[in-house]
């Protein structure tokens, strides 16, 4: 991008200030006040949950929520045990990690070919991939559900002995859905690489796969990092497929197990808050540590490399 809004040249800022000197002052105060209000409003719901998750139910039920005191950590211990978070976090990891790796690998393969070789169906193929990402998943439910039910799996791979209810089935459908967007972003990114890098490799007689793995992949690392962060968040957050394809409560990932947690925590809202914060914790950590990658992943297409 030729210019970025975050760092305009100093001179333009100054002249703009001079031009609108008077309206800027009062306007500026209104603007800041408005933005502060909005920001507080936006932080409030989660902040409220965090606050109450540290409070004792016995205290808040007597004194009401608009009070001070009753601080405790017990909600977290209880929520962890009653919600069986240990197991559901493990399930989430078993689903998310392979799904993200497979998505990125397959998307990189397709993107490499699409960006490296001209082929008549390049655009069609990209369209087929990209459109798949936008279809409402519910509209595929009937056939996927029935087909999964019919595909047998060995017991060591799935306790349900069919694709339905297996981690494998869930991983595959997540990969299929996410690949389009990743392929699109990666192929755009790869097209910005200088083509000369491949020429010496070709003279050395490096195979296509070696060129892909040893030349292209290291160079697209920033895009891969951004997509990895984004995909981890999305697949961790995935609710629909996990809810319908996995019936066994013991195999549910964190996000879908929420559905069953309400019954467990039915009236204790402080416990519910602690449970919610636990579920949010992984993505919030990602958000605060890797915010740059998350945002650039979400908007990668718009800068084209």
């Amino acid at each position, binding site marked *: 991008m030729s*210019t970025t809004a975050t760092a305009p040249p100093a001179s333009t800022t100054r002249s703009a200030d001079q031009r609108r000197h008077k309206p800027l002052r009062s306007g500026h105060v209104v603007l800041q006040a408005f933005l502060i209000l909005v920001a507080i409003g936006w932080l409030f719901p989660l902040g409220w949950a965090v606050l109450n998750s540290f409070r004792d139910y016995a205290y808040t039920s007597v004194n009401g929520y608009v009070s001070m005191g009753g601080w405790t950590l017990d909600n977290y211990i209880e929520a962890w045990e009653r919600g069986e978070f240990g197991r559901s976090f493990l399930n989430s990891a078993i689903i998310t990690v392979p799904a993200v790796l497979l998505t990125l690998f397959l998307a990189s393969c397709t993107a490499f070919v699409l960006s490296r070789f001209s082929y008549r169906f390049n655009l069609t193929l990209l369209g087929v991939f990209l459109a798949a990402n936008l279809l409402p998943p519910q509209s595929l439910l009937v056939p996927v559900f029935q087909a999964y039910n019919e595909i047998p799996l060995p017991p060591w791979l799935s306790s349900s002995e069919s694709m339905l209810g297996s981690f494998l089935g869930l991983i595959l459908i997540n990969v299929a859905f996410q690949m389009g967007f990743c392929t699109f972003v990666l192929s755009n990114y790869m097209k910005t690489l200088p083509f000369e890098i491949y020429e010496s490799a070709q003279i050395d007689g490096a195979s296509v796969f070696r060129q892909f793995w040893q030349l292209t992949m290291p160079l697209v690392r920033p895009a891969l990092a951004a997509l990895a962060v984004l995909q981890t968040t999305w697949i961790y957050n995935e609710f629909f497929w996990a809810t319908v394809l996995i019936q066994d409560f013991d195999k549910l990932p964190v996000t879908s197990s929420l559905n069953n947690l309400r019954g467990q925590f039915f009236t204790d809202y402080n416990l519910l808050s602690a449970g919610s914060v636990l579920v949010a914790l992984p993505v919030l950590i990602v958000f605060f540590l890797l915010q740059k990658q998350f945002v650039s992943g979400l908007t990668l297409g718009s800068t*084209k490399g």
Partner: protein
Amino acid sequence: MAYETPGGAGGTVRGGRGTRAGGRARPLHRLTGADRAVVAAMVVVPTLFVVLLVWLPALASVLLSFTSWNGIGGLDEIEWIGVTNYVDVATIYPPFWPAVQHNAIWLVFLFLGPTVLGVFLAVLLDKEVRGSRFYQTALYMPVVLSLALIGFVWQLIYSRDQGLLNAALGTQIDWYGDPGVNLWAVLVATGWRHTGYIMLLYLAGLKGVDHSLREAAAVDGSGEVSTFFRIILPVMRPINLIVIVVVVIESLRAFDLVWVINRGRNGLELIAALVTSNVVGEASRIGFGSAMATIMLLISSVFIAIYLRVVLREER
């Protein structure tokens, strides 16, 4: 939610980058046999995933919607019944029309509320505002949370007995349960997330707008508002289209929040939830589910086509 509509703003706002690498790619026929096989595998395997798990089921949904198959018998028992499923869904399936209405309300609300607000905030934050980064962070923090979790977080506010809202208003409303208000309560919760998402998309687009355009408008004595409507908005046309597509698709596949609250009943009927309960629910009717799935496919494909046109335009 993993099947989130991606930003994919798609290189749509042109920066000053000049021509792209279009002509540099190589033709396939220069490759050796082994390399050609590798190239083929690198495309065919991922394509199989997409075709077998997305496009084939989509096609099957359409076909099944014209049959009376109940999902139990073998495929040989399939009987073609024409549009009976569609007629039945529209006439003897009570939750259908409320669901259509709710999806429409969802769309209009998301568009007029959070989308407009998100665009407005993006325009404000695109300027040199002190604390812009903090505001941005606060606004898109909900974007990383799943909608299922958002349903939980807002329950602390909406609960009848212990919720903050009733305490503040002195009311006794069951915000998630009362069919008169629950759709609106859910929409506010969903809007909490949607606003930040749209802001993020639009902000990325605005950063690609050439700064000199705005400068020129300012020199011409054009006010902020008229600059936005006369200059920025037309330049942002591709992003505007993408935002519209995103809003439509998100409204069409809205599911998580209502499912986590009450499985899409009692005032929270949505098409996506009806499809799901007709497949995995107690009273499953495959025909109804497929017919509604096909309706979803039909609506979404129109907007997916718009999306592809915008996003792939530069590739041509």
